[in-house]
């Protein structure tokens, strides 16, 4: 080996951004042991922006290659590239060994970090060196979550003639999309495009649909998992229920409807919504008088089918064997009560966007009429049909998103659905004034910008400037914001405020991810192997993620990701082999392979 092939390593650990307790000292010591590594620098002890110094250092050690290891390595690459190019060393010889890219997030991944550095030192692509082994695969698949992502993934696999178990926590599939009224930017009615898919799932001979069920435990390895599924007591026999609804008419137990976002009341024995799949009733233990120990049982008496309702039914547990798992658990909406300045929960006519989706939906609480929310006799907040209609509605963007007090990330869809809601308000109430208060209008997808243009021309007031407060005055609401483009302060009196709430990971995302060996990011979104080149596969091999459990996204992106996850599963099934996942590899495996593949000869 000639002197020219000496490698330098620069460890970069920026203090901001990444909260990592990775032991850089150990890594620095470790990388110094390689013979062709001439020098190891530590960013904390290196005069980073001094080009003259770097030039002389490179000359001193006669470096020809440089590995930048650590976090955000790309961020400083141009600095080294500028120096390399002035010294006449090929810039391609700067290699990034990014810990973030390959998933070495904290101290528990020190070995992985070492492996990443070794690949850099040997000039071997990490994915070539870190190639996990494969196991035989069981052809059945488990899909967790029955929203649009789960539906799409299940159909995709089942259409390939493979068995799918679809496990859904609630009583029906459909997820959030079923709650929407219209979808942007085509204004397709969400139910019109979704319900046929739901029906397909319900009828597909290859899909075993398990609603009102949860995954309890998972054992095994990629290609063969034994999964215990808790089937919560539905108390209504799915095979017997004819969905007539007589039970619900007579049921005395009342509670807020989850599907309608609490805008309506439902009975204890209920069907989540009229197009639910399976279109059968179930009993919610919390609000059922009988289950809560009171004397009841009306539903059993009125049910026309004998032995259909069994109020004493118990939860069941089933075990299935599957080879691949797709996680599509979705998101939850930001709890608007956390941002008290907007008055949600305090003023009845401050609504979240999802509540408004229900309100404006033809199947919603008022049959699609926009009315005020009032207190009824029992003190419940309900929308009353036939009441007055608001003549001014404000939509406030970025509630709980792009805000370092809550969630720093952008929820991606709020701008577009807000525009859609504005359009729907204008359509239903042509006389009403509609205001949109936004920071940056993020109309990014196909046809979105055109949609934005169209809404702008519909007479909707689109105002740049975040609203700071919502207050109540004389029954109306006063929203305060700055109109940034004219530089004026606006105190607007409106009658209804819609808060465009962002997306958050579901409450059980972390525990499920832990059970499956999936990484979650600092917010709780699940992450794939690599956020750029592979956001679907996960470290644990047999598990793929799809949809909004990976991060906020719109419906097309969700559908695409679901299909992508299904592709991974189908590929495994067709091959008959499943990858064991990076987490199955040890440091020495990767090091050994990197050495074998290396084109750099050791001294």
């Amino acid at each position, binding site marked *: 080996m000639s002197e020219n092939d000496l490698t330098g390593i620069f460890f970069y650990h920026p203090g901001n951004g990444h909260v990592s307790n990775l032991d850089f000292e150990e890594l620095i010591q470790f990388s110094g042991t390689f013979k062709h590594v001439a020098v190891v620098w530590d960013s904390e002890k290196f005069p980073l922006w001094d080009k003259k110094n770097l030039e002389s250092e490179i000359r001193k050690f006669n470096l020809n290659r440089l590995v930048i290891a650590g976090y955000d390595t790309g961020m400083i690459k141009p600095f080294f590239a500028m120096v390399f190019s002035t010294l006449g060393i090929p810039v391609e010889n700067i290699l990034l060994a990014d810990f973030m890219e390959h998933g070495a997030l904290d101290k528990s991944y020190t070995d992985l970090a070492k492996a990443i550095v070794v690949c850099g030192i040997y000039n071997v692509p990490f994915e070539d060196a870190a190639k996990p082994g494969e196991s035989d695969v069981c052809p059945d698949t488990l899909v967790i979550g029955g929203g649009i992502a789960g539906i799409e993934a299940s159909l995709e696999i089942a259409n390939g003639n493979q068995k799918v178990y679809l496990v859904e926590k609630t009583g029906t599939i459909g997820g959030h999309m079923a709650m929407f009224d219209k979808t942007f930017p*085509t*204004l*397709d009615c969400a139910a019109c495009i979704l319900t046929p898919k739901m029906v397909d799932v319900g009828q597909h001979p290859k899909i075993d649909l398990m609603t009102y069920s949860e995954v309890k435990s998972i054992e095994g390895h990629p290609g063969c998992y034994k999964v215990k599924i808790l089937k919560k007591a539905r108390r209504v026999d799915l095979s017997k229920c004819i969905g007539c609804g007589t039970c619900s008419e007579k049921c005395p137990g009342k509670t807020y409807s989850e599907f309608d976002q609490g805008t309506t009341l439902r009975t204890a024995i209920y069907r989540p919504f009229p197009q639910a799949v399976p279109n059968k009733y179930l009993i919610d233990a919390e609000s059922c008088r009988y289950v809560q120990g009171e004397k009841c049982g009306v539903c059993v008496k009125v049910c026309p089918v004998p032995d259909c309702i069994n109020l004493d039914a118990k939860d069941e547990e089933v075990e299935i064997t599957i080879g691949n798992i797709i996680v599509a658990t979705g998101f939850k909406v930001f709890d608007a009560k956390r941002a008290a300045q907007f008055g949600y929960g305090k003023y009845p006519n401050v609504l979240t966007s999802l509540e408004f989706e229900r309100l404006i939906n033809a199947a919603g609480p008022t049959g699609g009429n926009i009315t005020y929310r009032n207190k009824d006799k029992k003190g419940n907040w309900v929308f009353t049909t036939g009441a007055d209609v608001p003549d001014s509605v404000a939509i406030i963007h970025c509630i709980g998103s792009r805000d370092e007090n809550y969630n720093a990330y952008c929820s991606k869809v709020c701008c577009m659905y807000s525009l859609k809601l504005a359009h729907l308000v204008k*359509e239903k109430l042509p006389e009403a004034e509609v205001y949109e208060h936004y920071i940056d209008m993020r109309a990014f997808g196909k046809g979105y910008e055109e949609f934005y243009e*169209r809404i702008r021309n519909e007479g909707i007031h689109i105002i740049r400037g975040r609203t700071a407060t919502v207050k109540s005055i004389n029954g109306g609401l006063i929203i305060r914001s700055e109109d940034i483009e004219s530089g004026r302060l606006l105190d607007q009196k409106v009658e209804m405020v819609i808060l465009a709430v962002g997306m958050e990971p579901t409450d059980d995302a972390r525990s499920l991810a832990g059970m499956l060996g999936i990484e979650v990011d600092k917010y709780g979104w699940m992450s794939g192997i690599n956020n750029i080149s592979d956001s679907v596969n996960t470290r644990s091999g047999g598990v793929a993620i799809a949809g909004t459990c990976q991060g906020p996204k719109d419906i097309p992106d969700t559908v695409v990701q679901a299909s992508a996850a299904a592709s991974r599963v189908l590929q495994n099934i067709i091959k008959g082999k499943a990858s064991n996942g990076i987490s199955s590899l040890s440091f020495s495996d990767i090091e050994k392979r990197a050495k074998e593949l290396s084109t750099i000869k050791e001294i």
Partner: protein
Amino acid sequence: MNFEPTIISFLCNWCSYTGADLAGTARMKYAPNIRIIRLMCSGRVDPTFVLESFKKGADGVLICGCHPGDCHYHEGNYKCLRRYHFLKKYITQLGIEPERLHLEWISASEGKQFAELINSFTETIRELGPSKIKNVIETYT
């Protein structure tokens, strides 16, 4: 009382029908005088269809297809265009004003153009008044 014409329209499935659907999803408003028949291609528009429509009482016939070069079946719209010119001459000989038959290219993204077309064509027919051929046929049958 204003004359409200009845117009039969033949739309190709891939471009024009989709364009008409788009006019709907975009809630563009147009005159309610049109009756749409979906065909797979404007090339399927048989001269008989047009003549029968007039015979049975249509005041106007509108044919829409994909823009030249965009035909889902490569060149069906060109075939249609040829028949259209021929038909125009033919109906004139029958005593029907040639303006009552119209061909227009509407793509899948031209919802707006579709709505505007319907409005302007309806207006044209309204100005022409009821089709005289109807009375002729009624008299002789």
